């Protein structure tokens, strides 16, 4: 019961963990490489959601000073995630470039088929 209460209270954290696991599962089980990269993106954004929700405080304003608001949410997680987002985009771009090249060499983007082709070549 205590656990259920804790989860209900931290529903944002719980949702981000669920999404994280969905992305993780997609990455582990699907053999299609593009699907793997999609899973990787979902996993990363889930972690980002988790970090951003750490910084949120109920009833406080966005961290832009100068208006009427006196109390602000924690700005540090947002600043970190801004970095994380860009990192994610560069990783995705590089992975996709490699996938295009894999397709040109092997004629497939399926990890299992590639493994088969390589074992036949040997």
């Amino acid at each position, binding site marked *: 019961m205590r656990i259920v209460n804790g989860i209900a209270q931290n*529903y*944002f954290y719980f*949702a981000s963990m*669920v*999404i994280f696991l*969905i*992305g993780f*599962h*997609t990455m582990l089980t*699907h053999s*299609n490489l*593009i*699907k793997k*990269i*999609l*899973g990787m*993106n*979902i996993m990363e*954004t*889930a972690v*980002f*959601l988790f970090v*951003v*929700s750490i*910084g*949120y405080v109920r009833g*406080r*304003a*966005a*961290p*832009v000073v100068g208006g009427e608001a006196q109390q*602000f*949410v924690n700005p540090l*997680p*947002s600043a970190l*995630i*801004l970095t994380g*987002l*860009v990192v*994610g*985009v560069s990783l*995705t*771009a590089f992975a*996709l470039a490699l*996938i*295009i090249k894999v*397709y040109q060499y092997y004629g*497939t*983007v*399926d990890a299992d*088929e590639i493994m088969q082709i390589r074992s036949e070549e040997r």
Partner: protein
Amino acid sequence: MDMIELFHVMLLSFLIVCALAVAHLRDLLSAVIVFAAYSLIMAIVWQQLNAPDIAMTEAAMGAGITTLLFMVTISKTRRREQ
């Protein structure tokens, strides 16, 4: 539970449903489009969490550029997952 929390829970369930859909769609192009929707909802969630900077960046980077890159890749490779 007040209105705003209900709204948050709705958004979060949307996110989970979108993530599941991305995992289960066999058509990669549809999966990428659902992923774009996922990114946009994520941007709205971040707006709701009072983090407008990253909401903006996610809307431009995640929903815009990542989706475009995925689409280009799919157009160069195969569209369906076996």
